């Protein structure tokens, strides 16, 4: 077997490898779900942080008002 024949054989067999259609669809679906899940987590974190910040600001405001007008 010559080097050229060897490479041609390699190319022929490797070029026959294809991504099965079902696998391609699975990959698209799974990747989409993962990205969406990541996005949802991010939104949840932002909402949670905003909620905590709003509560903290409310408590702070009440404390200030109490200090000023309490007595």
């Amino acid at each position, binding site marked *: *077997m010559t080097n050229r024949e060897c490479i041609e054989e390699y190319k022929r067999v490797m070029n026959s*490898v294809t*991504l099965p259609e079902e696998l391609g669809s699975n*990959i*698209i679906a799974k990747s989409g779900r993962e*990205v969406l899940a990541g996005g949802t987590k991010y939104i949840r974190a932002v909402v949670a942080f905003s909620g905590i910040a709003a509560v903290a600001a409310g408590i702070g405001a009440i404390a200030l008002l109490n200090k000023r007008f309490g007595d």
Partner: protein
Amino acid sequence: MAVEKYGTMLFRLCLTLVKDYDDAEDAVQDTYIKYLTKAPQFNDSEHEKAWLIRVATNICKNMIRFRKRNSSLCLEEIGEIGVSETDSGIFEAIMSLPAKYKLVMDLHYIEGYTASEISAITGVNADAVRKRMQNGRKLLKKTLEEAEL
């Protein structure tokens, strides 16, 4: 979409590196998740392709590092990826080559990259790429000759 355009190329590359159908699927999937979440800006399609190859290669290297096991494809899986039963022996022989040789050979002979382009994609010195190609060719010839016997 990039999955349709580069899916087969990435799957073949990952399969030659990790030698396992499910791991190759995971590697391609992780590559696309990175592609979708990072949403990098590309100058052209070649830049995009090179980025995907680099990311997929790194994911496969990490997989090999963490999942040290002797993976292999069963005959049924070989049929699923398009390799005929008569070529399964040759395919198995190719799969048995070391990953570092298969990577450069796949990028050169199948994807048509030059040694310097492979060097830029993989971060391996261009001379080392040429050497790996030379050694890979020798080993492939020996392996194929043995597989034919």
